């Protein structure tokens, strides 16, 4: 009655199915992760800020190095073409990343008292990716600029 399994016996249905199931589970995890990072993360990050308002490309110059040797500290300059007057000024500049664990990187709240819309900082980049700067204007419109950075040594998001 009981069939004794030979060690070199061909694969039977049950272990194959179990194997397939675990593979599927694994790939499911991968897919879920992929959905959290990349162009979707960027699009979602932008949508959360604009709340459906249209984003016009231009006026924003996001300066980042094309190649960053170390993603732990990448210097960034953002310049927005704006008279920065009481009637027409940049209210907030949002920086959104495509592949960092969190889409939001930093937000600068400026106003007419800034005199000009130019800010600088240093950011972390977890991977080679696109970064978008959104300028929220006093009239509620959004202008955007972006940059792509090749990151040689990624910011160590696993340690610290």
């Amino acid at each position, binding site marked *: 009655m009981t069939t004794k399994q030979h060690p070199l016996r061909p694969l039977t249905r049950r272990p194959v199915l179990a194997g397939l199931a675990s593979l599927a589970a694994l790939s499911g995890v991968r897919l879920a992760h992929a959905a959290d990072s990349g162009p979707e993360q960027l699009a979602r990050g932008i949508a959360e800020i604009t709340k459906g308002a249209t984003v016009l490309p231009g006026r924003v110059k996001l300066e980042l190095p094309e190649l960053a040797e170390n993603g732990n500290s990448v210097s960034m300059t953002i310049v927005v073409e704006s008279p920065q007057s009481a009637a027409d000024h940049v209210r907030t500049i949002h920086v959104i990343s495509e592949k960092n664990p969190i889409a939001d990187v930093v937000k600068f*709240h400026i106003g007419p008292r800034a005199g000009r819309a130019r800010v600088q900082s240093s950011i972390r980049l977890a991977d080679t990716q696109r970064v978008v700067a959104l300028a929220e204007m006093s009239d509620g419109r959004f202008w955007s600029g972006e940059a792509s950075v090749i990151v040689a040594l990624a910011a160590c998001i696993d340690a610290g």
Partner: protein
Amino acid sequence: MATTRIVVPATAKKGQIIEIKTLVQHPMITGHGRDNVGKPIPRDIINAFVVTYGGEKVFRADLFPGVAANPFFAFSTIATVTGEIVFTWTDDQGVETVEKRQLTVI
């Protein structure tokens, strides 16, 4: 209180746009990491940086873990009146670092 470095002119002409540069010492722990026994390291970052000039807010930054350690900012403001520029950094523990600089408008 963390160590800071601030570059701001001591004097400026009325209406002149002045550039301000600031740096604060802080590890900016992202909260994504784990220590050597696998325990998650809690997030500890500076989450807000506010600058007031003559009592009025002129610059604010909301920081996320994507800001590099020892956060650096450069920004500008128009010299209006002789007064105090106050810089306040707040971290996740609620620790505030406050620095003040006097700007004389001529």
